[in-house]
């Protein structure tokens, strides 16, 4: 018995060790991207401060990972969306090949912090230019003028004007600007269901528990363009707000001017139109013409 006890301990210890090693292995596997991202960020930050981003150096870009059509990380590890295309073009103009871009997730609440800490070189993540944000970070662009709109079932004819929304059941993301607009301006009498993400709203929209999903038309067009939703939903086409998507950079960063030049070039050589068509086209999205750099439509 006395011998048995230490053996049990040994076995437990061995199991614990193996498990922890396995966990560590998984961790480094999954975290590979993020550790790469941090080193990329330091590289990028130094290059940004030196003012000269030379070829072959990594550049770290913050994008959304969960918004189809805007910024989406696909299961096979590639990135698609309008923001991704714009960011890739900008990076190319700054002297970075697409392989040198380190993508980093920039959730809405984290964007200012990521820039202030220098974790990313710039952010293209459906980032609306607002006065409160402009105090914290600088914006290049805008590169897209989006409007708050609704996504409704393709066979729903009862919503023709924004006024029709007042006796409908709407859905949006908790705390988002769109959700706040519904409560204060657009449809104060409507019932508003708030969820953590747009996907939950889409389930309700399909089940007819919810009549309309509301947020920026670019995001809605991205969802409606997904293969699994094709033909099921349509955009309302109401321009209920103006959202000027800008490229966020650190306050006082020299990148702002370079990115503005890159954006102008992107519009001139037709890449901008191609990116819009590619990402939002299938939803029948009527996009605004490319915005003038530095002109924020309020």
């Amino acid at each position, binding site marked *: 018995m006395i011998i048995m006890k230490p053996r049990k301990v040994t076995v437990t210890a061995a199991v614990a060790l193996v498990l922890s090693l396995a966990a560590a292995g998984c961790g480094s596997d999954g975290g590979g991207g993020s550790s790469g991202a941090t080193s990329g960020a330091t590289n990028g930050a130094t290059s940004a401060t030196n003012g000269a981003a030379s070829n072959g150096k990594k550049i770290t870009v913050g994008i959304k990972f969960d918004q189809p059509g805007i910024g989406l990380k696909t299961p096979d590890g590639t990135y698609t969306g309008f923001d991704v295309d714009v960011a890739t073009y900008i990076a190319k103009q700054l002297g970075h090949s697409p392989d040198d871009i380190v993508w980093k997730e920039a959730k809405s609440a984290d964007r200012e912090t990521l820039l202030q800490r220098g974790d990313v070189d710039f952010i293209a993540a459906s980032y609306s230019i607002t006065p409160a944000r402009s105090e914290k970070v600088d914006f290049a662009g805008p590169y897209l003028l989006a409007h708050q709109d609704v996504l409704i079932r393709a066979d729903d004819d009862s919503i023709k004007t924004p006024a029709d929304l007042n006796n409908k059941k709407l859905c949006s993301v*908790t*705390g988002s600007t769109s959700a706040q607009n519904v409560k204060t301006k657009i449809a104060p009498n409507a019932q508003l269901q708030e969820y953590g993400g747009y996907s939950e709203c889409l*389930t309700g929209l399909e089940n007819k528990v919810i009549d309309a999903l509301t947020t920026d038309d670019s995001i809605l067009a991205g969802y409606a363009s997904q293969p699994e939703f094709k033909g099921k939903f349509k955009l309302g086409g109401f321009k209920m707000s103006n959202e000027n998507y800008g490229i966020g950079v650190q306050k006082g960063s020299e990148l702002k001017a370079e990115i503005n030049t890159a954006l102008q070039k992107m519009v001139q050589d037709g890449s901008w139109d191609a990116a819009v068509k590619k990402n939002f086209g299938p939803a029948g999205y009527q996009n605004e013409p490319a915005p003038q750099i530095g002109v924020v439509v309020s």
Partner: protein
Amino acid sequence: MFDFLKGYDLLGAFWVTVQLTFYAAVGSLVWGTVLAAMRVSPVPLMRGFGTAYVNVVRNIPLTVIIVFTSLGLFQTLGVTLGADDFKTIDFRLAVFGLTAYTSAFVCEALRSGINTVPVGQTEAARAIGLRFPQVLLLVVLPQAFRSVVGPLANVLIALTKNTTVAAAIGVAEAAALMQVMIENEAQLLLISAVFAFGFICLTLPAGLFLGWVSRKVSVKR
């Protein structure tokens, strides 16, 4: 420095948090006690159900449970819990989900309390002819409750903080307001600090009070 607080109904949001906590605490105390009674009952079927419930529910992430109440119960199965508008439905679903989750922990805390009651007491109660419900209600549970006030205070504090998950289905409690403020104000750290302070204001007094109660009522053996 705290100008950004203007125009937000901070107290209202925390009041919803308090309400969520209150209803879910009462609900999970009742349901958790029933579960604990099942787990110590002489009926194998009840014991099996209690064990299965606790082991399944406490191992599911709370977010999954809360989102399921809305997507699964409400949107797909049409369960509205007797309410008409989204606001009330969401609130009741959140209370339901929090109760279902927390009662598993209440049950386990209570069961540990039941184990502190010496076996001799149960045997004595049975010897004078009390049946199982009487043994439980008259002899065991009163002593068990007195010894688990401390652990239950822990569960209550955890519940208070867990109510923030209800923001995932749009209940307008503190965490939902925090998301609104972060969206508008670009003041991540200060806003987080304000809400962390708000939760400390709720949980610290509750913990201190229940700690005092726990010392007051504990059974001296």
